[in-house]
């Protein structure tokens, strides 16, 4: 890489429904992240935001409504629709041009205001064919879950255990929307909305304005004594039509391989100390373990059972509670970067893991059954 890029500050708001409006919330979070390092709006180099018109209720067009809340007006700045980890990488690239010494990445989603996620993801379908069948993200995930269990002998109990772990972890996360001590039975006997998925294995819809402030190496030294370094990134997108894809052989392993190559990682299980991943459906955390190279194919359930991915394990996954605990749909990928950063800096409070964290992974996914994946590697 031509230079180094650091995360110098992060900020986020709480996921539960609030009475604040979208516009003011975005300003508060932007102000907070800039104030943390004493950066003035005028000195901010560039901004990349992530949002989605489907989720933010058709208030104006793209970023035009909220633009000044991000400090973006009159600046050379942009907006990404959908997965916010993409916006993170665009910000990194802007710094690497050498023309900007700081970049604000901000993802905006206020889930309490939008219709249920399934109504929004129904709009991801094409109006000719798949919308007529009523396909949405949860239906696609239910197809994938049954196939995964049948192919590899994964049990419903193992899938439910992911929710038990993550909702337990989120008890320590003041920003999390859903939290609590549950049993496997609580999860399995929640409403059977779309077999084999039950309601508590499906992520909620949450609020999330999430900000990450990036800086060049030189500027980072000026702004913080605890920089977190960008090490690598990869993404991959599969075919649009679900029937063209192998739902058990998706694109995460490609995205991860690209990120690992950029970061110089050859043995992810040993070299990664912590992962914050996007698991909108409980069983997907097990599949993603495999695709990220944390265990062999089909052994995600066994890895969870071994305790390795628990908060006090050797490779903690989602100590924040992950997306099952907090799901601001568009912002959830960038929120994984925020949580990984807090862990690398030792600033995660009650959710700080026991082990030392020097290299962390953040993962985002959008679309049906993981059509699109992005992976970022960060290091202290």
């Amino acid at each position, binding site marked *: 890489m031509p230079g180094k890029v650091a995360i110098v500050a992060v900020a986020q708001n709480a996921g539960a429904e609030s*009475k604040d409006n979208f516009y003011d919330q975005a300003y508060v979070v932007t102000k907070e992240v800039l104030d943390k390092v004493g950066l003035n709006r005028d000195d901010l180099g560039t901004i990349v935001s992530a949002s989605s018109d489907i989720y933010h*209720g*058709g208030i104006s067009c793209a970023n035009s409504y909220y633009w000044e809340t991000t400090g973006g007006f009159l600046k050379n700045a942009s907006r990404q629709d959908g997965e916010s980890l993409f916006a993170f990488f665009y910000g990194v690239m802007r710094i690497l041009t050498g023309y900007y010494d700081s970049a604000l990445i901000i993802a905006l989603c206020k889930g309490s205001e939008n*219709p*249920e996620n*399934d*109504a929004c993801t*129904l*709009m991801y379908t094409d*109006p*000719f*064919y*798949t*919308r*007529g*069948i*009523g*396909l*949405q993200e949860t*239906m696609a995930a*239910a*197809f*994938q879950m*049954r*196939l995964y269990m*049948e192919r590899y002998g994964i049990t419903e109990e193992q899938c439910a255990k992911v929710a038990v772990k993550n909702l337990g972890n989120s008890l320590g996360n003041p920003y999390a929307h859903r939290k609590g001590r549950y049993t496997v039975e609580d999860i399995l006997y929640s*409403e*059977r*909305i*779309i*077999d*084999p*998925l039950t309601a508590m294995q499906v992520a909620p819809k949450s609020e999330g304005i999430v900000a990450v402030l990036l800086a060049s190496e030189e500027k980072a030294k000026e702004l913080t004594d605890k920089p977190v370094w960008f090490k690598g990134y990869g993404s991959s997108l599969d*075919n649009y*039509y*679900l*029937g*063209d894809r192998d*739902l058990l052989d998706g694109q995460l392993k490609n995205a991860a391989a690209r990120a690992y190559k950029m970061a110089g990682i050859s043995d992810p299980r040993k070299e990664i100390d912590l992962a914050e991943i996007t698991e909108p459906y409980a069983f997907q955390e097990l599949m993603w373990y495999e695709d990220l190279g944390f265990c062999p194919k089909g052994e995600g359930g066994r890895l969870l059972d071994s305790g390795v991915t628990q908060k006090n394990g050797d490779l903690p996954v989602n100590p924040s509670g992950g997306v099952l605990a907090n799901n601001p749909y568009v912002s959830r990928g960038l929120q994984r970067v925020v949580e990984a950063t807090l862990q690398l800096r030792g600033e995660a409070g009650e959710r700080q893991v026991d082990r030392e964290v020097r290299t962390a992974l953040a993962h985002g996914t959008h679309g049906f059954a993981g059509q699109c994946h992005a992976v970022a590697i960060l290091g202290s």
Partner: protein
Amino acid sequence: MAKEFKTIKTEIRLPYELAYGATWTRFFEGMENEIIYGTKCSKCGRVLVPARSFCPRCFVDTDEWVETAQEGVLTAWSYVNYKYFGQPIEPPFIGALIRLDGTDVDFLHLIGGFDLSDFDLVRKTVKNGMRVKAAWSNERKGHILDLKYFEPV
């Protein structure tokens, strides 16, 4: 239940008019005539269904049209038992992927033709790998649900 704070309820309704294009037009003419059309890629030889104008993998035109079999194997399914906004079909219903005989991708559609009200019975009846065949509506109008569903053979 009323919220403790003031909110405004709003919705967006905008009329769009989208072109089917040549490939969907012919595919849906097929639906009207109880035909499921696919197209074959001359490079990899795969039969893609529904029909489309190019092979995403080889990135070449697929101009050979194929009438696919009306029977195949169930490859994935889920029992949908809740309501969501915009849902085109009353729950409960079964969304499914079906590999039609002689084709190389899965076709998204529905499973039906039996009592769906008893979920335990459904779980006993519907299995990945089972043979299914197309059941057509008597009133067809060039829509994906001209094909009512696939039923167990």
